[in-house]
Structures are given as C-alpha cells and as structure tokens.
C-alpha cells in the first residue's frame, strides 16, 4: 500500500457508518411454552430458536444501509453458546461480524448493561435493538442502553432515513405516528414498518458459505448484577369451551354479550 492509498483507506474507514444490531435468541412463534424444575425455568426441549422478529426488521434495515451506504454491520447477542446458530444466520443474511457476550442473562437490565460495556469500547453511530423480544417482552433493552450511553432513543421505530448526519425517524404511537428529526449517534427500537415483511432476507447458499468465514468473537461478560430475577412461571388456566350461537340467532349473541359477558 502506497502512502496515498493508505490515506484513502483511512478516509474511507473514518466515513464508514458503524452499526450495531442487538439480537435476541427467542423461541419460534409456534413454540409450545412449557416449564421445568418446578416451574422455575423455561423448558427449551424441542423448541426451535429464531432471530427475534423485531430484531430481524432492524437487521434488514442495517443491511440495506450497508449495501447503499457502505455501513459496517456488527451483530451482538448476550447469551451462551446455544445462541451461535442465530448469529451465524445473521452473518448469512449479510452482517459483517458477530459478537457473543458469553452470559446467560437474568433480565433486560443485565443485557443492556453488558451491551453498554461493548459500546463504550467501540463507537457505534447507530445502535439497533428490537422494540421488544417475543419471549420476555420487556421492551427495555433499547431505552436502557441509550440512557446508559447518554444517547437519544426512538422506540417503536417505523422509519429511518439517514443522510450524512441528519436522520429522519418515525415512531409509532397509539393511534398514529410521530415524525422526528435526529442526529447520529442514535439508538432505535425496531419493529415491522421499518422494513416490510417482503424485504426480509432469506440467506442463500453463498451467504451461508461466507458466514462460516466471518468472525464470531466470544467476549467475557463484565461483572454486572441483574436488577430483577424471575422466581416462578405459570401457564394460564384452561378456559372453558366456546359457547356457539346459531348463525340465525344474532339476538342470542347480543343477549349473551350484554347480559352474560356484560361487555356491551
């Protein structure tokens, strides 16, 4: 490399947007949820794990930015070795590298604090989390991480457009949406709308082969205590059978809703 090339290399390096996508390993949406050890632990037997759907919408947007703007995309998860297949899948989808913080987290705070430790070592311009994970539904990692990093956070993010440092974002709110201006660095909570279902990337053979060569680094966790712990689990009680009403007996249905269920 000549000095001139080296200079160009550095320039490009500096201009590259550095994106971190935080991935949660969650049970497939069709999973039957069972518990073990006296209802104190989730029974993973026979359960397929997937990339948390909200995170996948975020990852897809990140890959779009990688392809259009040359951003670098790192995916990270806080979890034990059983999470590696979904990190490999993220790499096959197109992420450049993966990190695994080697810890089975107790709660969302622990995840956010471990992620913050990573983000304090390496600067990320854009940090993408999912709106919530579909297992514990905490909806807390993004907001906590942003606050720990003193960065702004946009929850329920349904649009993200980046032009140099200016960012146009939209947040879904009850009954509508909020249109915001932001700047990098920024943390968002991704959800459907950020990209469409049809934009999701199904890894092809080439992606899967390349993923094997991409770095997946395992990082030791920091010493951080969780803020809460789950003591026991419980399944909802079985509900009674449905009361069927004849299609011609609309009055009967209205009567049941009014006088029995008392919801009209």
């Amino acid at each position, binding site marked *: 490399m000549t000095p001139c090339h080296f200079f160009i290399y550095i320039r490009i390096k500096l201009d590259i947007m550095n994106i971190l996508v935080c991935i949660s390993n969650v049970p497939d949406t069709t999973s039957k949820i069972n518990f073990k050890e006296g209802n104190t632990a989730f029974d993973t037997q026979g359960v397929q794990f997937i990339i948390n759907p909200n995170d996948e919408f975020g990852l897809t947007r990140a890959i779009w930015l990688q392809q259009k703007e040359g951003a670098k995309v790192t995916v990270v998860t806080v979890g034990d070795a059983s999470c590696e297949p979904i990190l490999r899948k993220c790499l096959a989808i197109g992420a450049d590298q993966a990190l695994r913080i080697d810890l089975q987290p107790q709660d969302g705070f622990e995840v956010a604090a471990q992620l913050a430790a990573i983000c304090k070592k390496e600067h990320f311009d854009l940090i993408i989390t999912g709106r919530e994970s579909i297992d514990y539904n905490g909806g807390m990692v993004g907001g906590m991480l942003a606050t720990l990093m003193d960065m702004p956070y946009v*929850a329920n993010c349904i649009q993200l457009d980046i032009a140099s440092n200016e960012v146009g974002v939209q947040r879904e709110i009850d009954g509508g949406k909020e249109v915001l201006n932001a700047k990098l660095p920024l943390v968002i909570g991704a959800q459907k709308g950020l990209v469409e279902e049809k934009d999701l990337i199904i890894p092809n053979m080439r992606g899967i082969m390349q993923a094997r060569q991409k770095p997946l680094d395992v990082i030791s966790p920091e010493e951080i205590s969780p803020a*809460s712990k789950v003591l026991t689990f419980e399944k909802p009680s079985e509900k009674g059978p*449905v009361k069927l009403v004849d299609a011609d007996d609309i009055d009967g249905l209205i009567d049941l809703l009014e006088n029995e269920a008392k919801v009209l």
Partner: protein
Amino acid sequence: MAVIVYIESENGSPKKAGLEVASYGRAIADAKGLPLVGVGFNVTQREDLNAYGVDTFYNMDTLGEVNFDVNRYSEAIAQVVEKEKASTVVVSSTSNGRYLGPIVAIKTNAAYLSNVVALPTTYEPVQVKRTCFTNKAFNETQSTKERTVLSLSSNSFGLHKKQSTVTFMDGTYPSLSSTLQVKSVEKVTDKVSIADADIVVSGGRGLKGPENWHLIEDLAEVLGAATACSKPVSDMGWRPHSEHVGQTGKPVASNLYIAIGVSGAIQHLAGINASKVKVVINTDPEAPFFKAADYGIVGDAFEVVPKLTEKLKARTQ
C-alpha cells in the same frame, strides 16, 4: 417516601390509562401506608385526580410545547422520584408509558418490570406477577433493587375510585437540549386507537379483499370500537400496519375482541389473549380460534356481520 404514578393526559384531562395507573398506585400506597404522588404535564382537570385518590400532583407546565418529549418527560419524572424518595413508580403500558419506563428506571437507579398484571405479592423486596411469552405464560418476578418502576398492562387492574383532596404542586419542566426533535404528529382523530379501545373488531383473510372492509368498519362504528387485522392482511396491504395485531404486531387487551374471518393462528392469539371476552365468526368450525373464544358463530361473515351491525344499530336507536 411516596408511591409515584405518571398520569398521562390529553387536553388537560387524565386519560383512562392514567387513571388505571392511579387506581393501582393508590392500592400500593394504601398497602404501604404512603401518600400517592402523581406526575403529569399540562393537567388542569382535578376532579379525576381527586376521584382516584391522588394526594399530591406535580403538574409540569411545558410552556406551550405541545409535543411529547421523551428526554424532558423522563427527566421530570426522575426528579420527582428523587425528591419524594419514592421506592415504587408506576407507568402505564401505552406507547409513551413503555417508552418512559426503562429510561426513568436507569435515571433513578431502579429495576424496571413491564407487563405487570397484579398488585405486588410482597413489597420488600417487590415481587409481582407479569405476563411473558406474549401472553402464553405468566411469571413472578422479584426486584433486586431498592427502587422499582412498574409498567402496568392495560385493563389488567381496572379503574377503582377512591376520594382524596389533591394538592397541586408546580413542577419545573426541565430544560434539556436533545438532538431528537419532534417535527409533527400524525394522529387519526376520528377513530379510537387499538390501545384506547374497550372493543376491537378485527378482520382476517376470510374477508377476501380490502373492498369488503366496510363490514368491519360499520360494525366497529356502531360499537365505538377500534379496527384491527391479522398479519397477512397488513402484509398484503389490505390494511395499514398499524392495525396488525398479534405476537409481531400490536397487543390487544380490550374488554371485547371480535374476530371475523381470522383463523386463530398461535401468533395471532398470543397478541390478543389478554382481551377479556373473545368472539369469533368463521365459516370453518375447525378454525383454531373456536378453542380460544368465549362465544362463536359458525357462519359466513358476509351474511352474519351485516345482520349483527343492523341489530346493534337498532338497539342503540
């Protein structure tokens, strides 16, 4: 020491979600023998605060700023929490409540527990029942911090009146600069939102196409209900994404959920399970929704729904 509740409002009056949080906070305050302190922004209507047992209310005048500002709101709440040395803070599970909760928790060095569906079973430490796996299960969670922020699931505790005489305190709206600026808010004003609705009418692929959605809309209108849809319906662009309910869409916790031409896939049911009463209308008696519903009609939506709408209309006249 006090129990703090964030009371959301609209046009100066507390919203229903805010009053449910007040009811819940009041019950905790009574159990612990503490006053109930509310925090809100531009609230002028006091009757509801008195009726739901708020003892002290910090009202922040945002000085003409009409938009929600996550940084300033969370800072304002955090300041009151510190000032009152509160160990329990309650927010709602609206989009703004769930946005603020984790941020306030970090700012005040608290644990954050979302999806709370019951009063704590113990207070020292706080232990409480929450939903998980998108309503497929519950868990009992214990806070390991001295302070806990709880986000209460909508419609899980209900409204409970208790008379009080509220003292209004003028809070100072913190001036924080942020790179995040709200440019505009686009709200559908002529319709009730899924989050606020007592009744939700939902349509699935069984309705065959977007041109048939008047069936759903007309029924929703007589009931004062919000409209919703299944995932494929929004994926195909028949309806906006904001109407997609389920595990990967919006959660529904209404009093009444009416599903029309929806098969009742596990991902759909997960998102709507917290609704109190479920009604299904479907041509297929084997549709899984019949196992999850309280009331059902095996029948063609195109015949049943217009009749139902007509009868309900006649009833209200």
